[in-house]
């Protein structure tokens, strides 16, 4: 039986290839249990200004020790803003895993590949573990790889839409042509989307909304983790997939009936 190695990313060995976003959870306790019970190893968080009249605890207190925390640069409209968020995360909390997320569009929430690339170039040079969230474009992915990104995160479909792998054909190109780990992120709506991404040869999947908005987020996090594992095993096990032709699976001689 083929043995699949762990995912090597940013100098760490990761067993659970399902990454979880921490947004939208109704309860921080449930978010914590989701991470624990599904044995999530990598989570994302954001950074925001705090309103004076808000109460509440630091989300970092609800993330189990030993979980890798990746700060997303959501809110950044350009490379400079993304870089500022990253440097603040490192200085304030010693976090150097960054999901670069740069967008200037609130209708589709599509990432700005060009600004994202600029941020990769600067932040990778400063020693950050950089995972750029991008609109699957082979040229940009190549430049990001050259610039020192630790992985490439092509979108599956629009953030929060749950529409699955709308960008499938273009994700396949990234998987086939880029040597870095490919983590499909955004629009993952059900575990079968996650399994499908892994069957295609992706190295991991990130989801947030589908888990946080589930009636039972803890169960959902476990389901996605299992789906990612199943998809990975299918890929490593060389399951060939659709043949497009009918072909009987039982013997074609010795039938009990007829001649």
């Amino acid at each position, binding site marked *: 039986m083929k043995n699949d190695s762990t995912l090597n990313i940013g100098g760490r060995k990761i067993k659970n290839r399902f990454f979880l*976003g*921490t*947004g*939208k*959870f109704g309860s921080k306790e449930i*978010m914590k249990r989701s991470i624990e019970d599904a044995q999530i190893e990598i989570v*994302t*968080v*954001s*950074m*925001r*200004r*705090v*309103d*004076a009249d*808000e*109460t*509440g*605890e*630091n*989300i*970092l*207190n609800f993330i189990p020790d030993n979980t890798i925390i990746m*700060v*997303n640069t*959501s809110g950044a409209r350009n490379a400079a803003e993304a870089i500022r968020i990253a440097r*603040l*995360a490192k*200085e*304030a*909390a010693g976090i150097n895993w960054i999901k670069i997320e740069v967008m200037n569009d609130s209708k589709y929430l599509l990432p700005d590949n060009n600004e994202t690339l600029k941020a990769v170039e600067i932040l990778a040079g400063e020693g950050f573990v950089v995972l750029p969230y991008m609109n699957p474009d082979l040229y940009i992915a190549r430049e990001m790889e050259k610039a020192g990104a630790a992985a490439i995160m092509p979108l599956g479909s629009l*953030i929060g839409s749950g529409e699955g792998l709308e960008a499938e054909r273009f994700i396949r190109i990234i998987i086939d042509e880029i040597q870095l780990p490919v983590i499909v*992120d*955004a629009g993952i709506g059900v575990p079968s989307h996650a399994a499908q991404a892994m069957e295609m040869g992706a190295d991991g999947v*990130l*989801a*947030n*909304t589908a888990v*946080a908005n589930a009636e039972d987020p803890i169960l959902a996090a476990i389901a996605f983790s299992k789906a990612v594992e199943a998809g990975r095993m299918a890929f490593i096990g060389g399951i060939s997939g659709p043949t497009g032709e009918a072909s009987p699976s039982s013997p074609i001689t010795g039938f009990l009936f007829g001649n």
Partner: protein
Amino acid sequence: MEIFLNGKKKLLDKKIIFIEDLINAFFKERKGVIIEVNGKLIGKDDKGKVKLNEGDRVEIIQFMGGG
């Protein structure tokens, strides 16, 4: 004095002198905030030592959930 708090003008009571006073006045319930004054990070231990000045740009930031 008037400062910029999270990008908005804010008039402060005379009693607010140190960063710590600002935090206690408006952000007491919030644990683990990150404080920046004029682009510089203020450590936890320095909250009581750093004085606020007219026109200072103060950012109160926290890690939150996000995908």
